[in-house]
């Protein structure tokens, strides 16, 4: 089993319930996707997973301990988190970004900047400003940063958003390779149902509740997709998705 576990987690913004009784755990080396409509609670769930938000009921555990009870440095060395918005207003270079991740790592997990950049396909980009690379490459640079932290679990909030199909496919292939080569467990939210087929497992949430959990072949059915996104009966779902 991987280190991250949600146990009957509930969370509300004020009096409005957002996540209700969510439980799940992950196998080591698993690449799991979280799908759901806008506002269904995907980002909130990932924030609960990273300890940024505190559940009102239940608990999120990392390596057997409540994630909120861990000290910042301990948590960062076990779990990497990439939020949806990653705009950078100052002219950081790719190497400086990776260095920030390295400072959060335990000494025994420290990888060199070159190794990390090589593992995300950005060899030779160390001195390149982030403003001079494409959106897909920037996403890779941030993945190198959280990889540098040395944790075995990565939580990624819509890492494919804003990328074209080629970059989306390449990024997913990279994440798959990282799962295999580094033994990582990756839990990511996504809207790209066409690409969701390439993951090991999909979890579907609707109005903050786990609606379904299983292999892509089981999840990507017309009935479940209509239910998840409240689709109009007249809307035709393309054959390549279901």
């Amino acid at each position, binding site marked *: 089993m991987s280190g991250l576990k949600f146990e009957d987690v509930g969370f509300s913004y004020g009096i409005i319930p957002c996540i209700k009784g969510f439980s799940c755990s992950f196998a080591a080396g698993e690449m799991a996707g979280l799908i759901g409509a806008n506002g269904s609670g995907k980002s909130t769930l990932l*924030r609960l997973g*990273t*300890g*940024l938000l505190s559940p009102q009921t239940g608990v999120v555990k990392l390596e057997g301990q409540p994630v909120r009870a861990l*000290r*910042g*440095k*301990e*948590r*960062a*060395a076990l*779990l*990497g*988190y*990439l*939020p949806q*918005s*990653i*705009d*950078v*207003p*100052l*002219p*950081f*270079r790719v190497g*400086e*970004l990776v*260095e*920030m*991740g390295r*400072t*959060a790592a335990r000494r025994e997990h420290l990888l060199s900047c070159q190794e990390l950049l090589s593992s995300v396909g950005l060899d030779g980009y160390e*001195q390149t*400003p982030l*403003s*001079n690379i494409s959106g897909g490459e920037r996403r890779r640079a*941030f993945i190198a940063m*959280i990889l540098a*932290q040395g944790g075995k679990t990565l939580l990624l909030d819509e890492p494919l958003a804003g990328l074209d199909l080629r970059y989306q496919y390449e990024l997913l292939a990279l994440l798959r390779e990282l799962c295999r080569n580094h033994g990582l467990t990756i839990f990511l939210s996504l809207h790209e149902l066409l690409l969701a087929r390439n993951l090991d497992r999909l979890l579907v949430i609707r109005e903050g509740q786990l609606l379904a959990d299983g292999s892509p072949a089981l999840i990507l059915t017309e009935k479940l997709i209509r239910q998840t996104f409240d689709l109009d009966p007249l809307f035709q779902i393309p054959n390549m998705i279901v």
Partner: protein
Amino acid sequence: MKRHPLFVMLGSMVLVLLISLSLGQQAINLFSPDPLQMKILFELRMPRVVVALLMGASLGVAGAVLQGVFRNPLADPYILGTSSGAALAAAFGLLASDGSAFWLVPSLAFAGAVLTSGVVVALGRDAWGVRAERLLLAGVGIGFFLSAILMLVMSLAQADGVKRALLWMAGDLAGADWSLVPLAAILMVVGFLLAICRRRGLNALALGDEVAFGLGLEPGRERIILVLAASLLTAASVALGGIVGFVGLMVPHGVRAFVGADARRVLPLSAVGGGMLLCLADTVGRSILPPIEIPAGVVTALIGAPCFLFMLRRSSAGSMK
């Protein structure tokens, strides 16, 4: 052989110091000064050069800190309203005193700066902690309010006091002496060390609160410590010689264009760059139209604004390639 930017800048600073000490209403040969020139050097120029260096360094570092904390390249030491608080308190001192109590105006400026920062940080908090946008808006709001009171006070005041208050607000270093240097230097060193110790937090905050949290930091706590550091630095600068604009905005941008955005390099280089720029500006201000002295703050704005716009144009042209 690659030269380290810090050594290059320190070398340039020595050159600026020599120029600054030798130029003025009267040019002085530093290697063979006569007794009168010695007196001018030790009693007038040296304190002025030291004050300019300390002020410029403080402003440069404060600018670098605030631009990272607020994730806003336009932030500068005055965006938090600190300058307005300091200027208002200083103006009260200038208008109320006859100039005999030399410590009154700077002390009031310092108290005004610290008090304003405290109020702004208190207003910048909500249930989630200290938020960047909230803090920024609180700073701008308080700044406008205090500036309005300052204008009101000045419009009701006597002519002589108003002129002194205006010079203060224009960043005039003509009255610089050694009296406040030790206190301001301590404030500056404390502020600088605080910022250097939190360099990791400063880098992470520039990437956003969620990324900073993911890297194991507490964004709210880091922000309070860094704003405190910037307030100490701004207060030290205002107490020493009044209000000087543009240094805090421009210097960190110039530094980042050469060495990237890592706070570990940007903070010390902004200190050296800021000190050098203000020293040069003050030298130009007192040498160019003798016997008239142009306040250093006016010179930094006059040379700073075109340089800044040039840099902006060059960087936007570069990013379009």
